[in-house]
């Protein structure tokens, strides 16, 4: 119990120290290492008392929760009333709706299949132990896919999206096929 209390106290100290770094008018090149060191201190304290597998989660969760004491204390009041907004019947456009849905589906689908092919090629070409390659392939897939979704959607050009993703998918499928033969 005492270990947990000490570790929580270190997390609290980290949050308040980050707050002071945040208030300090200095260059970001100095602030970022200081924040990193402070966060590492909290993680190391938890690791000192518990297994490292747990401590990273503990440290980051407690910091996330404790930070709200500072955020709450620093909140700005009082609440002003919102302007009343008119309630319109609807400006629903079936074209815009389907365009958005199609774009989102396509980006998820294309980006997903291309990412899966890239990720699957890892176990084929790597010299790692197969089980490790498969798991890292799946993780790689789960990291590439969201990045590609963001990349595609931030451009939101259906033609460009289709062309780029198709080329990407064909290249990846070919590489997977070549890897199997």
């Amino acid at each position, binding site marked *: 119990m005492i270990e*947990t209390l000490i570790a929580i106290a270190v997390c609290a100290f980290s949050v308040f120290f980050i*707050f002071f770094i*945040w208030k300090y008018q200095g260059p*970001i090149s100095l602030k970022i290492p200081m924040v990193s060191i402070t966060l590492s201190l909290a993680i190391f304290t938890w690791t000192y008392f518990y*297994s490292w*597998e*747990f401590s990273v*989660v*503990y440290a*980051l*969760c*407690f*910091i*996330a*929760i404790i*930070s*709200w004491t*500072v*955020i709450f204390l*620093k*909140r*700005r009041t009082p*609440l*002003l009333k*919102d*302007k009343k*907004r*008119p*309630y*319109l019947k609807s*400006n*629903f456009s079936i074209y815009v709706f389907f365009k*958005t*849905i199609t774009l*989102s589906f396509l980006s*998820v689908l294309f980006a*997903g299949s291309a990412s899966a092919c890239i990720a699957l090629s890892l*176990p084929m070409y790597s010299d790692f*132990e197969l*089980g490790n*390659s*498969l*798991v*890292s*392939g*799946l*993780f790689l*897939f*789960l*990291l590439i*896919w*969201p*990045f590609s*979704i*963001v990349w595609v*959607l*931030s*451009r*939101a050009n259906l033609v460009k999206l289709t062309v780029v993703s198709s080329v990407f998918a064909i290249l990846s499928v070919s590489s997977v096929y070549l890897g*199997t033969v």
Partner: protein
Amino acid sequence: MEIKLNALTVKSGLKAHSLIGLFSAGLLYLIAVSGSLSVFFEEFDRWEQPNVPEYKIFSPEKMKTAVDEYINRVGEIPKSLYIVLPTEGVPRTHITDGETEWYLAESGEFMQSPDVPWTTFIRELHGHLTLSPTLGMSIVGIMGVLCLALIISGVIAHPSIFKDAFLWRVGKTSRVQQMDLHNRLGVWGLPFHFMIAISGAFMGFGGIFMAITSYVIFSGDPQEVVDAIYGKDPVIAHQTLEVNYTQAFATLKQRQPEVTPIYMVLHNAGKPEQLLEIAATSPGRLSYSEIYRFNSKGEWVNQQGLINGPIGGQFAYSMYRLHFGHYHSNWVKLLYGIMGIAFTFLIVSGINIWLARRKYQTWVNSLWNGWVMGTLIAFASSCWMRFIGFNPETVFFSTLGATVLTSILGKGHMKITNAFYVALAINILLIPIVHAINFNFLALDSMQYAIYTAVILFGIGLTGITYKRIRTYR
């Protein structure tokens, strides 16, 4: 102080963030609320069916009788038969082959079958949206990926991430307030949200990935992928048919004194190649368990290597506990519960910002309002109505549908929202009342009292908020 990012990059990031958010928010919200509740599924299991004997140790001497009685009851020998042992989270023992299940008394006597439809519904809703497991898990997996995409685009769209680290302007319009709440919850909880999203996506896509990989790399059998990651089962032959459970547990205690057995499984019972496995948690490890193998005489065969084998297998086998917070102590669940609620707020505030940016309101505002409030009302009503014999799934989806329709078709946005608050408060307060009446005020231990207290306090708090709200927005 701001991290310099190209204005176009920020704008594109924001655009992607909005698109992905709008595309996924409804389902993500459902998954987040059911996920926050699922963290406590062990406690809900016990609370929903309180009249089951609880104890800390189930003696291995009772296992043979239990296995024989199980085979006698089912009328056939199952391929794999599990006895799930009492743990700190669930101090109950049950025996199952995956289809039929009974609780066991400390004496080994067969008790009632599990009857926890509400908890099962929550788990199924979170795991596969109550659809078929393959389809549902894929959709939930995609939601996990979209959540990761939201995190990435959110960071890109937020160049003043450090500058605004402690900013919460409640003194401005509700849009600014929601925006600050959204950004602070998102930034400070980022590592947690990332961890939950990637572990969720991993579990959601695990099955599909195995199926695809088995065709691309192996001969089409997903078991080959499982074997490649977790290792193959040993082949044992020419054994005595009598299984010595006591010896197996004694051998485990002698070889690995620090581990805690959580279940035992007997494969190919009654056949010469039968294999006894004991799964046990290891202190300080996130891995769901290590599996120790024994022959019929209870002699050591090997261990699967889930805590000391290839790193890929260890990593994959740790995802479940990492995702649900079922490790170390029960306090971790509370931590996960709080972070889960924060994640839920993050989703709601995200859409609220998008809605508040518009200069007008439409049925979309009502739809979102109905969905958010309706989900909560539906969870609460399905919980207490389960105790008077209703199917939780039917109640949940009917209630959700009714609230969404009421919200869209009804007149007077404020009045409807107030009515939702009243309905939620009443349904929350009905949960402990109906539960207590149903089980003759039977409360077994501190955990049961803790659930009663939490629900009652939440109900009272909500009643207060509702009263204040009705007075303000009459």
